[in-house]
């Protein structure tokens, strides 16, 4: 069961939201609904399943409805239609008191402009969620300090937010979100207001923290590179609708429509796509006991210079290269195993193409993609690598 399950989530702003929903159900677009009824369809029929421990990125340009989506997850904005379930518990029917309790226990939030309380110290800010829960002051302060330490601000407990830089203020915002130990962390464009170097630091910090904390994070951004860098999965929103949900490589590799394709056109593909997207299964492999003549004939036929030789378990033993095979035949070698070389490079399925490009230059055989125990999963020929790096649609499949 996903930790967050969203079905048909819809928000219409205006005087007659129901009318907007009806028009949406009749299949009208946002612009048409606005023209016909004056209602703004901010979010339209969004379905999401977000698993425990996942860093789920919702990406879209301004006006795509992403901020509205995240605010409906904790009902800061009341949905017009649809359901949000947290751990199987539907939140839209909760009373105010029950909703507050869910917000206290299960959700916390980090904001675009930090939204710190300027009249409270850094420590009091970090402890705010605990204060609301009624945690006694001593424990509250202790837990706030612990949260501040995880973001590297353990020594600034008694400072005021106004004395800090933007990056440090957002660290406080993050500590406030972490201090309550809520399962789900909602992050509304948390790094957009920061300058690029600080943003990079904060992204690194988040990735590092997430390794230990294993929270479920819903992360809003308009920055595709940020989405690719952080997201386990990415949801692309356009005009309030979900256009595509998938991992970063999936989205780049197979954009759902022209909008997403245009969007991802500028992404540095070599740093997002991995061997998995560029590899194919090996056309043929040989065993160490095969005869050199058979291998050489096959290589001649295929006009290849070398081929992988695997043991019975499918692990790479070495490479049979045509020049060595020919020399071996002259010397009367009987099995391939006697002429093997280790003239090959191997990579994991999640190795970035930028790293594969370096390996590809030096060897006669395609790069081997192996699993943790050395089994051959597939190979990445140079042509495939180049095709994957070029952003022509469908090039990878060619």
């Amino acid at each position, binding site marked *: 069961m996903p930790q967050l399950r969203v079905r048909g989530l819809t928000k219409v702003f205006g005087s007659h939201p129901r009318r907007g929903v009806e028009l949406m159900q009749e299949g009208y677009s946002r612009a048409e609904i606005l023209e016909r009824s004056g209602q703004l369809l901010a979010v339209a029929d969004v379905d999401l399943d977000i698993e425990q421990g996942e860093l789920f990125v919702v990406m879209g340009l301004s006006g795509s409805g992403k901020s509205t989506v995240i*605010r409906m997850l904790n009902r800061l904005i009341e949905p017009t239609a649809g359901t949000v379930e947290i751990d199987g518990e539907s939140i839209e029917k909760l009373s105010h008191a029950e909703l507050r309790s869910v917000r206290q226990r299960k959700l916390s939030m980090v904001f675009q402009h930090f939204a*710190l309380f300027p009249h409270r110290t850094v420590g009091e800010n970090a402890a705010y969620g605990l204060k609301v829960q009624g945690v006694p002051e001593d424990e509250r302060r202790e837990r706030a300090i612990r949260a501040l330490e995880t973001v590297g601000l353990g020594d600034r407990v008694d400072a005021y937010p*106004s004395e800090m830089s933007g990056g440090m203020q957002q660290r406080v915002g993050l500590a406030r979100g972490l201090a309550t130990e809520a399962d789900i962390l909602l992050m509304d464009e948390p790094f957009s207001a920061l300058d690029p170097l600080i943003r990079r630091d904060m992204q690194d910090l988040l990735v590092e923290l997430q390794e230990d904390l294993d929270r479920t994070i819903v992360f809003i951004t308009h920055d595709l590179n940020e989405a690719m860098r952080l997201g386990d999965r990415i949801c692309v929103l356009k005009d309030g609708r979900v256009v595509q949900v998938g991992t970063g490589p999936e989205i780049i590799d197979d954009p759902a429509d022209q909008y997403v394709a245009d969007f991802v056109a500028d992404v540095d593909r070599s740093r997002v796509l991995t061997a998995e997207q560029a590899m194919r299964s090996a056309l043929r492999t040989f065993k160490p006991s095969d005869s050199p003549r058979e291998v050489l004939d096959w290589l001649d036929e295929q006009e290849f210079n070398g081929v992988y030789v695997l043991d019975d378990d499918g692990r790479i033993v070495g490479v049979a290269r045509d020049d060595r095979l020919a020399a071996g035949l002259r010397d009367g070698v009987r099995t391939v195993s006697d002429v093997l070389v280790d003239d090959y490079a191997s990579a994991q399925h999640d190795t970035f193409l930028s790293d594969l490009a370096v390996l590809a230059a030096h060897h006669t055989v395609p790069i081997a993609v192996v699993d943790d125990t050395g089994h051959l999963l597939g190979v990445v020929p140079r042509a495939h690598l180049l095709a994957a790096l070029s952003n022509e649609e469908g090039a990878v499949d060619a």
Partner: protein
Amino acid sequence: MHNVLLAQDGFPVIPIGEAAESAVDWLTTTFGWLFRGIRDGVGVIVDVTESALTAPSPLIMTVLFVILAYIATRSWGLPLFSALGFLLIHSMGRFPEAMETLALVLVATILAVIIGIPLGIFASRSERFSVAIKPILDFMQTMPSFVYLLLAVVLFRIGRVPGVMSALIFSMPPAVRLTELGIRQVDSEVVEAAEAFGARPREVLTGVQLPLARASILAGVNQVIMLSLSMVVIAGLGGAPGLGATVVRAVTSMNIGMGIEGGLGVVLLAIYLDRVTAAFGREGRGKRREQAASTDEKSLSDAGDEDDQSGEGEEADQGSESVKTA
């Protein structure tokens, strides 16, 4: 005979004045007990306040005013001014009158704040109430103050109470308006943050909105004080004691000397009250500065490096604003 009164040109005359008169008559007969109650209650409060202010000798009161000025401003300018000002009032022989006026101002202000701030809070949360109350506040502020005084004298008879009541009505609008404005100006993301962590509406109000609206609310209180001072002086016409009565007496007897003395007393009192309350409104800023100065060097240099973001020079009470622009 005539159902509709016609003016000379045949245009119908709507007898608003007569209607108002009979409305007031009806009020005084029907709610006489209420007005008597208010008169007695407010009268007692004013008496107590006045005795408290006039009981100590003028010199002791002057020392107290100087101390208050120092607490408010943490500098010597205003205390020096207030020492000279109150001693001047004393030497003109107008000190008791000044204290009587001050008592009326204090009571009117406290009542206006007690009523006005909750109305402002309510207006900030309810669009409908905000829209409904706006024309009423406009009416209260623009109706000539003499008319209030007239009405108050009819309802409460002459003396202190009509002075306080007309000052209360005349001075309350800024308390409502600036409370509403201050709360509405609080960064909506900061309010959302409190709500997102599950704070109750009351906790959001007292823990976030009111503290951050503080500067605006105190600016409203400052306005209330100044307006009620001006009204309390006019209330001299309705028999209210104090500097107003002095000025009225001077006007009716064409006594220029007495008029100047009374007027000067009002001016000195007004400047003192304005500066002290304005200083209390800025107090948060001073505090924050001191704290910033007492933190270690590193934090100071950080704050300096990121001046555009941390907005060191911004008013602390507008911290949310500076965060927003960062």
